[in-house]
């Protein structure tokens, strides 16, 4: 992995404290999702909700508001 990509991953949404990752919280944030889908399927994959920007994001994405998640969180 190249250095810039590695750095980007270090500060990627995947490691951000703000991100809504938990399947139950994800489902609660998207009313109606349980009718025909769910938050614990592969099609959701590694996506989470960014409460800062109110967007659905994947682990590769980054932004200036990144806050590292505490270990074990």
């Amino acid at each position, binding site marked *: 992995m190249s250095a810039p990509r590695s750095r*980007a991953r270090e500060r*990627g*949404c*995947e490691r951000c404290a703000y*991100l809504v*990752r*938990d*399947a*139950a919280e*994800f*489902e609660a*944030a*998207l*009313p*109606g*999702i*349980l*009718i*025909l*889908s*769910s938050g*614990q*399927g*592969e*099609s*959701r*994959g*590694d*996506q*989470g*909700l*960014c409460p800062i*920007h*109110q*967007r*659905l*994001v*994947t*682990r*590769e*994405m*980054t*932004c*200036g*508001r990144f806050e590292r998640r505490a270990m074990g969180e």
Partner: protein
Amino acid sequence: MNERSSKGSNLLRTEDYWAIWLGMLVIALSVGFFWAGSTLKPWAVTPGTWSDPSQLTSDLAEHFFGFLSVFLGFGLVFAISMRIMGRNLGEFLLGYTILFLGSLAILYLAGWSEMERLDLGAPLLALLIGLVIGNIKAAPEWFKTSLRTEYYIKTGIVLLGATLPLTLIAEAGPIAFVQATIVSITTWLVIYLAATRIFALDPRFGAVLGTGGAVCGVSGSIAVGGAVKADKDHIAIGIAVVSIWAIAMIFALTFLTKWMIPAGGAAMTEWYHISPGEAGAWVGTSEYADAAGFAVVAELASDHGDAPIHAFTLMKVIGRDIWIGIWAFVLSIVSVTFWERGSQTGEGPQGRVGISVVWERFPKFVLGFFAASVVMSLIAASPPDDYVGRAPVSGTFKSKAQTHEYYADFSDFQIPAALADRFAYQAAEDAISFEGKMSLEELNALAAHADEEQTWALKNLHAKSDWFESELEALVIGPIKKLRSWAFVLCFLCIGLSTRFKELATFGLKPFWAFTIGVLVNVPLGYVLTTKVFADYWRALQ
């Protein structure tokens, strides 16, 4: 990003994989019992038909332990998996118990002669009853833990793999792929262009709506939503619009296809007639979610066999669903290259998904579906060399078309010389037997020397000589189909109970109309492709 990827393998952390484990466990048990000289039949039961309450109570008493085993067997795996996926076990178990009892009641209701007269099957009843209850009173939060529409339908689809021969997938799969690709791309473009050009919606919102209509419904909207960094509210609106249209199409397509398929397997004589296979393929192109589409084809299956289910699965699951990762990857590039340039994201999230998304978004339960089909096809292709079919000289001949009781006497039956080494009459056992599978010509040769009652017995022996039909289908695949029915009814009840129209209908009309324009193109296009362009393939499908 989520709990799953941060804590390691998804093999025990997503419902896709759990659907595979549960489905394969059921198949392994069914095959294992069979190889051990037994069958899962007594433990894999669904309610029978009834017309007066005494029949109902006796059926309930007869099948009580079967229902209990289905409840405990499914419940155990569902409970373990839900716990591992981080859900509240107590909430799930309580909710699952209510759902199971509700499904049992619905299956009995569907078996009532009055319901059969109304032509209402368990799938539609489960959906209707769920919708009525769900819209009168919202499900409490704890109950929502057990409303796992996707989990139940994925389990049902894996089990379905065991009933769909691999040869059928190989023969019809490419046609399904071509048809689904035409429909998917056209529908996506129409919805996207309507959303962006006519209603001036954000392109990423258009992509979310388009994918919901073109690929795999709500799951498609979510998969693409992350790839294009869609606004959360746009995802929520996409979910609402897709769900409303998917449920509306359940009723529209069910009533339409029921009217269009000739009753009782009659010939297609009217201009509007279509075959069960065509109906399934059409539903596969024009429904927006797996669970919704299965509600339609499972309802059709009660009258027309499994052809609609098979055609739908080929079209929707293989033709459309499995390409969602490619859609996400391509649209992510388009988003970064074009759409985000035109919008001021400021300090918003940057970057795009990598090529690995093609595999990451792949609906893994489909692998279980294929594995189940491979396993059962291999078993079906290896009948025992020394198989001898047996039929009683007096008994009941049952086929899809008729049931007939017969009383034959073979004591002075003249066996044709050419078949003397394969046909035998065992007086001590009051049975006749035939070594290997009896062809129609061989049946006719035997029947040429038979009276009417003997002919019925020979017909029965003809059926029994088919190892696949009389052994594998009856003792292995049959129980799997019963358990598949449970998974489906649980799913359809969940759709109804979790749908609150009042809460869904909070979006503006622009996205609704953009999607509706897509529906207006998708439905006739699906009909033409299915019944005109590729009709030969879908009519031949069983």
